[in-house]
């Protein structure tokens, strides 16, 4: 009997182990496996949820519909009334193609499944709400469409920001496409070498060219004592370790101070300034402006690159960096941020595009970001750069962006690249002393920045400021 009892206890111990295994595995499952399974594309709950939920509507800042789900004879269809100007930004949501753009990023919101508050979820479940949240963007759809038209089908991108808040007013990538027709036109769209599916504003990497001189200037004003009193004599080119970097055609040789060099976008003078600054200081300033780190934004932004120190680092590379050439690459959003930082007195604010979401029961979730602001350059320096940029538009390379009665601050860029004519850049903001809008425009292989990108920026600034009055 003694032995029997011992054996029974042993068997019981085995059962204790087995049941502990059950509990342990269930715990493990909840902690490590659960999320994967909930999001698994095989999970019918997900499909059902999507089928049964009417996807929320996307509005612009003024309440105009950008994307909506309509039901015809019981069949739900996603429509995009604003057409191709919004294609790369909004993306699409389709059973066949999956999702892209804001439709992908905001999926949880639009389906109403990203609610954090469990009571809210329960309330909607009990009340049988089968509609996702409506999302309001900071975009002004008139501005967006106007900008898209200004590209006239040329490849390029435009980002317009409110420099005070970081709200994205327009984000255009050209050529675009109509997301409503994405399914039908998929073959053509995916093969088109103009890559209409790409959102160039945040995924396109371009050499920023002379528009980067804003960063070089900022570093110089802060880093080189009495820089404003210095003059540089230039024969119209500069030789660095045997490499010749020329100024643009039509720029007269002679004595240039830094303001004049900025006005005429003198490569030779800025190379000299860059060499005087040294790699460390230019690199540090570029990093502060957001290069080499991911810009926090609702949509995934490609990281702009300022090449760091390497075996290849030499004066030639530094020379090219100083004028935004070489291996230096930036997204249009990055350059818009550089501009808006100057406009905002040296303070960089985080860009955002989702204004608010409204649940079907009327609960408003605000998305305005107030965090992430950092002083990239001090206020005095920022004001100097502002005056320099006004000078560029008044008297320099940026005159095509001049507006009667409104002072515009700007900087042009004509970025050399291996694909043909230079990319035309214009970055700027207006009104110069009370900035309401900051813009970055790039037109691929269009030639001179002032002549080709400047007018686009001007028209957008003008339209936006008119709308404010």
């Amino acid at each position, binding site marked *: 009997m003694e032995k029997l009892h011992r054996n029974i206890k042993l068997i019981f111990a085995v059962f204790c182990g087995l049941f502990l295994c059950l509990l342990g595995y269930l715990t493990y499952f909840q902690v490590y496996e659960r*999320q994967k*399974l909930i999001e698994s594309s095989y999970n019918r709950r997900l499909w059902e949820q999507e089928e049964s939920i009417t996807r929320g509507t996307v509005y612009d800042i003024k309440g105009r519909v950008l994307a909506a789900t309509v039901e015809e004879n019981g069949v739900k269809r996603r429509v995009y009334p604003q057409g191709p100007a919004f294609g790369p930004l909004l993306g699409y949501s389709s059973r066949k193609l999956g999702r892209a753009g804001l439709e992908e990023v905001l999926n949880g919101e639009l389906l109403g499944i990203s609610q954090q508050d469990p009571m809210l979820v329960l309330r909607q479940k009990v009340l049988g709400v089968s509609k996702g949240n409506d999302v309001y963007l900071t975009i002004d759809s008139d501005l967006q469409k106007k900008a898209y038209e200004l590209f006239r089908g040329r490849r390029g991108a435009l980002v317009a920001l409110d420099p005070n808040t970081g709200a994205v007013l327009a984000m255009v990538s050209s050529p675009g496409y109509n997301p409503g027709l994405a399914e039908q036109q998929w073959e053509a769209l995916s093969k088109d070498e103009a890559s209409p599916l790409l959102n160039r504003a945040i995924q396109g990497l371009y050499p920023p060219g002379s528009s980067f001189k804003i960063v070089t200037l900022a570093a110089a004003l802060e880093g080189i004592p009495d820089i404003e009193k210095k003059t540089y004599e230039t024969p119209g080119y500069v030789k660095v370790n045997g490499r010749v970097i020329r100024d643009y055609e039509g720029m007269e040789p002679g004595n240039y101070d830094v303001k004049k060099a900025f006005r005429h976008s003198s490569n030779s003078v800025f190379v000299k300034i860059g060499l005087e600054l040294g790699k460390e200081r230019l690199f540090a300033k570029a990093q502060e402006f957001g290069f080499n780190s991911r810009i926090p934004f609702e949509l995934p932004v490609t990281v702009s690159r300022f090449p760091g120190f390497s075996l290849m680092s030499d004066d030639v590379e530094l020379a090219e960096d100083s004028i935004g050439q070489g291996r230096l690459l930036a997204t249009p959003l990055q350059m818009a941020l550089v501009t808006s930082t100057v406009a905002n007195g040296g303070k960089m604010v985080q860009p955002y595009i989702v204004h608010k979401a409204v649940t079907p029961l009327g609960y408003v979730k605000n998305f305005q970001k107030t965090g992430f602001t950092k002083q990239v350059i001090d206020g005095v320096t920022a004001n100097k750069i502002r005056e320099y940029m006004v000078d560029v538009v008044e008297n320099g390379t940026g005159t095509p962006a001049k507006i009667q009665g409104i002072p515009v601050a700007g900087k042009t860029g004509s970025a050399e690249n291996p694909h043909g004519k230079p990319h035309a850049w214009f970055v700027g903001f207006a009104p110069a002393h009370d900035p309401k809008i900051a813009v970055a425009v790039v037109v691929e292989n269009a030639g001179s920045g002032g002549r080709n990108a400047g007018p686009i920026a001007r028209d957008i600034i003008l339209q936006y400021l008119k709308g404010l009055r």
Partner: protein
Amino acid sequence: MDSKVEATYNRALSAMALVGFISFLLLSIYRKPLSPVPFYGAVTFLSIVFIGYFFTGWIFPSSDKFLFILAGFLVELGLIMLCRINIELFKRQVAFFALGVGFFILSSILTRYFVRLELNPVYLWGITTALLLLPLLFGVEKGGARNWLAFGGFTFQPSELAKITFVFYLAGVVKQNKINHFPRLAAEILAAVGLLVLSRDLGGAMLFYLTALAVIFAATSRLDVTAAGLFAAGIMGVLSYNLFDHVRVRIEAWLNPWQDVPGRGYQIAQSLFAIAEGGYFGTGLGLGRPDFIPAVATDFIFSAFTEEFGFLGAAAVILMYFLLVYRGIRIALRLKDSYPALIALGHTVMFGMQIFTIIGGVIKLIPVTGVTLPFMSYGGSSMVMSFTSLGILNGLWLQAREGETDGETA
């Protein structure tokens, strides 16, 4: 009986009534169109619970009431899910429960006589094999296993009854020291297990085999035999993996269900999706999707339960089953004679292994084998026979208590 213990039981009973009342009220309201059926069902169910509880308390003042409360609670949770899944199954399950309670009382009474009878194990083995053979000859196939008998409108699973006779056989045979005729014993057990394998009831085969091992080990303390038995089980497993298609399918579905979700991994994947959806607190009663889970009323009821009651509910159920096993072990330890102790142990191991097999299966801890979750799964045979087993445990408990009081007076 101790009044403190009595109070605990009464508290458990009222908690159970409260849970039932709230849940079924919710289901009555939630059902569209509004239906009073869940409510009537609940009233009927709770009445049976109370009648059963007080009746057993009245005729056997010293019976292990905790067994009945635990089983009743588990049945209630199963009924809540069934009511949600399929109202027809719910109605029938309430009837099965009533029948089960009847059998519980009956077997509580009869066990002592049966134990005293000490039927020759050869007869019991004969009954067991006959029960397992019948469906192979006359049976119908359900859910891939040919272990059902059909009489008119009723179907019956003889292997459920065979579990009980098999345990009696085991206790009898090891008590008679038949262990010395080891080849014969092994042949007899393997014959029963083999019949289950033939009817494709792999879960059943595993249960019978492991129960036999446990009882033999408890009686003989032979670790070598047990180890050899487990080793042999491993070999049989590998063999059947290579021989039988349906075994291979299950093992592969277990190892990687994501390779073929629409096909062989379907069942387990749906079960896991449900458990994942539940999270810690569950979606709430009535808000899950049991309709996505195959065999949800029987084998996969635990997954549906976990979806709606969450990890916490699932853990509570596992702990309740654990308590049931604990009570069974406690009974086995209280008994003075080895024969009834082995019977109690056999039934407990059978219960425990079955619970582990199916819960472990649906959460993908082990491969899925089609066995029911005692008390919770839908099914008359399972319900009635589970209660009969429970009644036998209760009967043995009564016997143990009598033995103790006899000893005190003597």
